[in-house]
């Protein structure tokens, strides 16, 4: 274990080098990434960047959790958390 973490909604989430944000969140037991304007959850679905269902906000930018590799200290939140 490399002991690296990123921040998910204020909490540290561990990850292994090269792991996607989606994989690290799954390991941490996080399955809902937030809700869209219709009240539906953002969640992991296709795993290949096609469905846009796993969007999260990474350091202020909307990104697919399944495509984006976790990096130490990255600030990750729900899409509706807005820019910070």
């Amino acid at each position: 274990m490399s002991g690296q973490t990123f921040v998910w909604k204020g909490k540290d989430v561990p990850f292994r080098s090269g792991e996607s944000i989606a994989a690290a969140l799954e390991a941490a037991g996080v399955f809902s990434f937030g809700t869209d304007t219709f009240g539906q959850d953002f969640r992991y679905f296709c795993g290949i960047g096609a469905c846009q269902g796993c969007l999260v906000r990474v350091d202020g930018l909307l990104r697919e959790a399944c495509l984006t590799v976790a990096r130490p200290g990255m600030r990750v939140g729900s899409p509706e958390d807005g820019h910070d």
Partner: protein
Amino acid sequence: MTDAEITVIGAGPSGMVAATTLSKVGYHVEIIEQRETLGGAIYRQPVESAMAGGPAAGSNARWKTIRNAFVKQAIPVRCGTVFLGIDGDGLVLIEDRRKGRVERLRRKGVVVAVGAVEKVYPRTGWHLPGVSTAGGLQVMMKETGRAPEGRVLLAGNGPLLIAVAAQMARLGNPPAALVEAGDPFGHMATGVALLKHPALLQEALLYLMDVYRSRIPWLRGAHVTSIEKEGPALLVRIERKGLEKRMSVDRIGLHDGIRCNDFGLPPETLSSKDAPVVVRAGDCREALGAIAAEADGARAAQRLANILSGSAEASGLDAAINRTRQAQDLLARLFAPIGNVSPLAICSDETILCRCEAKTVGDLRSLCQHLHPMTGREVKLNGRFAMGACQGRFCADNTASLMALMNADSADLPPRAEDLTGRRWPVRPVSIAALTAAANPNTEKPNNEVEQDDAS
């Protein structure tokens, strides 16, 4: 550094073979890939320290051959980069997702190799957290070396479900059940025909042995009809021979086949007068899987090289592709769903059809009750079906098929998925800020601005 003449989009097997082939005949090629690693979904690489997720030995050997040949050519790779389309000036638009920067590239040729997407029929609750595609579970296992935790149900149609079940079993958590719409045991003659494809048959038997050894219940001729939240778990209703069975699970993997990921792609071009010349390779041209994708990557590269050099067009598809198509046809017959009722016909009105825009089967029904049946495009513009962020990748087929069922007495041609999605860039969502920042540096000023400058 010499600027690339050809950009290959997608570093799965077809893209990597196409890039290698073009580089070998002397073209300056680059490859762009949305992830940080090569291999595509089929050869998704495990992260550091992850146990290999159990790809079969044959699959591993194929990957090593593709990778070694690719590495030998020293082809530049742009990772974390997505293809947006080809603009009106014939420039290739890509976005570097790490920098949030869009670039416009002048190229002689483009090979589009963006693979396949899974088909998933709607069932009530298919959009809930904890429900993903079965392929989504599979790529996650390849990446992390871990099986999904808890009680997992796999459901839908086709041989991929068995492969995912076997991989889960090898990683220590076999699925709670496998729900299959077809019944391969009911087609013995077709099964015997698979003997002509020994490699495929061997792979299938190995997976089946894992399924039996782990005592995974395989419910054939069965369908998941609904999924609902039940505390932290998911309550699933399964219909089989008119009887309902209920299960409580933590995760669900759905899969009803694969199709080309050809949404919004620029059309292929046939002549060197077109700049850039665009060819498609692999599953985004015809969804036949990894082995055909390799052969098709080489075929597409040869075709592009022929067009660019002005030599005669290569003749059609090669034998490997035809052979895989025959094998896929056999598998489709073997796994043909039991019964004549479309899974779309039994969806309740509350079932979400287009998740991005939260549009339901009932919403489509009210659009289809108009006196004059709407076209696919009208359903998109009036009803927002296929208008959201996935650009119809997971709802356009289902919406078009359901429209055909609802307008069964119409004399019009049944709608196609493409009638709903249209064909335009950007192929992927991109921020307007990134697009406008890219538009300027190489764009000539409009004439009226030049005149104003002269006058001042």
